[in-house]
């Protein structure tokens, strides 16, 4: 918050993503403003999740840079890089809660590792985070005892544990029913509005895209990169690229 406002939350420049062989994505360039809900969309196998895994440092990009709040993440030394990891949280597709720990321990673990908080303070913070995602009182449950939607919300609470400035969501609505999925969308909106968190969402759920996305980029498998960038409603009506219009209208009512 001490940084000047015009510096974007995330800047990606000429990123090339792949797993060894032929690159899945080439020359990916975009930036995400602070407090924005930014969607990465595209058909199955277009490299959405690949891009996400490269952004958060799970895989090394073969070239290009990722910059968070003006500081390069890809060029940072390992120690600095570990510190930069704390600027963002990740909500994984299946939640990825640590199955041997209770919800309370899951959320308390990052706090234990990185904060000088006392045990009591930690427990209070955990209760707050669980309350924020609507899971108050469920702290002593194990991840296996929860439904898919609850697991996602708990994972969101964990992603928010260190009050990150950015949260990445990997297909938040995958495997959820429409109502639970909408509730999760509302949760994302509420967190953005109360905490000012920048949200980057990988999704192909049209309902979510139109409900909460401020801006989006669309990836394409054959183009191996971004084929559209902008507001979903504008793109759905005015995009010059038929692939984009088709995706955003489910291929229906083509004009």
């Amino acid at each position, binding site marked *: 918050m001490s940084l000047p406002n015009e510096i974007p939350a995330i800047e990606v420049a000429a990123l090339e993503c792949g797993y060894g062989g032929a690159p899945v994505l080439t020359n990916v360039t975009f930036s995400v403003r602070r407090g924005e809900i930014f969607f990465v969309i595209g058909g199955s196998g277009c490299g959405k999740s690949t891009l996400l895994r490269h952004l958060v440092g799970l895989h090394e990009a073969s070239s290009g840079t990722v910059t968070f709040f003006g500081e390069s993440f890809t060029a940072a030394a390992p120690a600095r890089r570990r510190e930069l990891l704390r600027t963002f949280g990740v909500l994984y*597709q299946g939640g990825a809660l640590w199955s041997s720990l209770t919800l309370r321990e899951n959320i308390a673990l990052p706090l234990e590792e990185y904060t000088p908080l006392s045990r009591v303070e930690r427990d209070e913070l955990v209760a707050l985070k669980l309350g924020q995602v609507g899971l108050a009182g469920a702290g002593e449950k194990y991840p296996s005892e929860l439904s898919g939607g609850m697991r996602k919300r708990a994972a969101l609470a964990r992603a928010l544990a260190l009050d990150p400035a950015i949260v990445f969501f990997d297909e938040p609505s995958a495997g959820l029913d429409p109502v639970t999925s909408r509730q999760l969308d509302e949760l994302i909106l509420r967190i953005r509005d109360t905490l000012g968190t920048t949200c980057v969402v990988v999704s192909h759920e049209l309902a979510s895209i139109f409900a909460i996305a401020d801006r989006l980029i669309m990836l394409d498998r054959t183009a191996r990169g971004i084929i559209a960038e902008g507001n979903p409603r504008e793109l759905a009506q005015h995009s010059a690229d038929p692939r984009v219009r088709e995706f955003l209208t489910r291929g229906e009512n083509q004009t």
Partner: protein
Amino acid sequence: MTAPSTAVARVEARLEGDCLHVTLGGRWRITQARPMWPEVVADALAGVRDYPRVAHGRAGSASPFASPLTRVRLRFADDLAGWDSALVLFVDEAQRWCRGHDAFCDLAALPEAVRALAAQMASALEAGVSAPPAHPSNFLAALGHRAQTAWHETLEIAAFVGDCVLGAALLARHPRKFRWRDCLSEMQQCGAMALPIVGLISFLVGVTLAYTGAIVLRQVGGDIWIADIIGLAMVREMAAVMTAVVLAGRTGAAFAATLGNMKSGEELDAFVTFGIRPVDFLVLPRVVALGLMMPLLALYANALGMVGGLVVARSVLGIQPSAYWVEMLAHIDLSDMSTGMIKAVAFGLIVGLSGCLRGLQADRSAAGVGRAATSAVVTALLLLVIADAIFAVLFNLLGW
């Protein structure tokens, strides 16, 4: 056959001029036998070849079938009770035969659905039938590929061990960061919980050794040396090796399965993006637990093995327990004991590291987790035997 005629697929082929009229009837099920096109054609044309002779005999006219077949016309019989892919396969065979024999395959009489499916089939076949990829036939290529894989794997093991050493160095500087709670629970799992199985196996190893030794010793009248043989064998070799084998199957496989499962559930990724190294958090507590528990278990195995030998010595060779005890103490000293303990620690680290390594390398699937567990046991046993041989040479050189 008591089955009604509609229960099986049936084909009637009738020649009219140069046109073969094929009528499909009965019930076509992919799970049941169906007529094959080549047989249908062969039967029909066999009739043709016979026909001229008969016709000639009757009417004396020239054969009307001298010209080859130029049209095949398929249609449904009225009694067609049902059809599925079996019929589509048959129609496709017919079409391909016609293409090969310059005949026109007329499907106009078939329902639209059959024609659409046959067309789909034809275009799918054009794209090629998928088959498992052929193995590289070139011997040198295969060898090179194997060598590359082996080299890559060696590098991975080296990187992993290096990572663990780095983590351990970090721990030595910040012992409070260590997950003692996890380590203790792992110690309970791999130590205390393994006592019954390790005890039983060690006792039986002692018994077996004693019986084997007794065969020779009785012949030379050196019954009392049974105490030395069992004592030395257990302390120097068997206790550490047998405990390590049990723990490789019991604990190493469990480590691999746990970590493999965590990997497929993205739990390891969650650690990484929180800046927590899985090696520090998951691997070190487990390896430390095994490294600490293995010598203790080996000590316990020593005791149980000696008891096993003692029981056999008493009951088969009639040696007094006190004599057995005194004889054994006279020949086993601290150097024997220390070789066993050093081995036990090393074996514990080997089992723990191979279990965790294979778990971290697991594929993100159910089968991947299973393979990781198997591979963990195999890797641990292989490294155990290699390490044991190295230790044998080393201790011999040192004169221990």
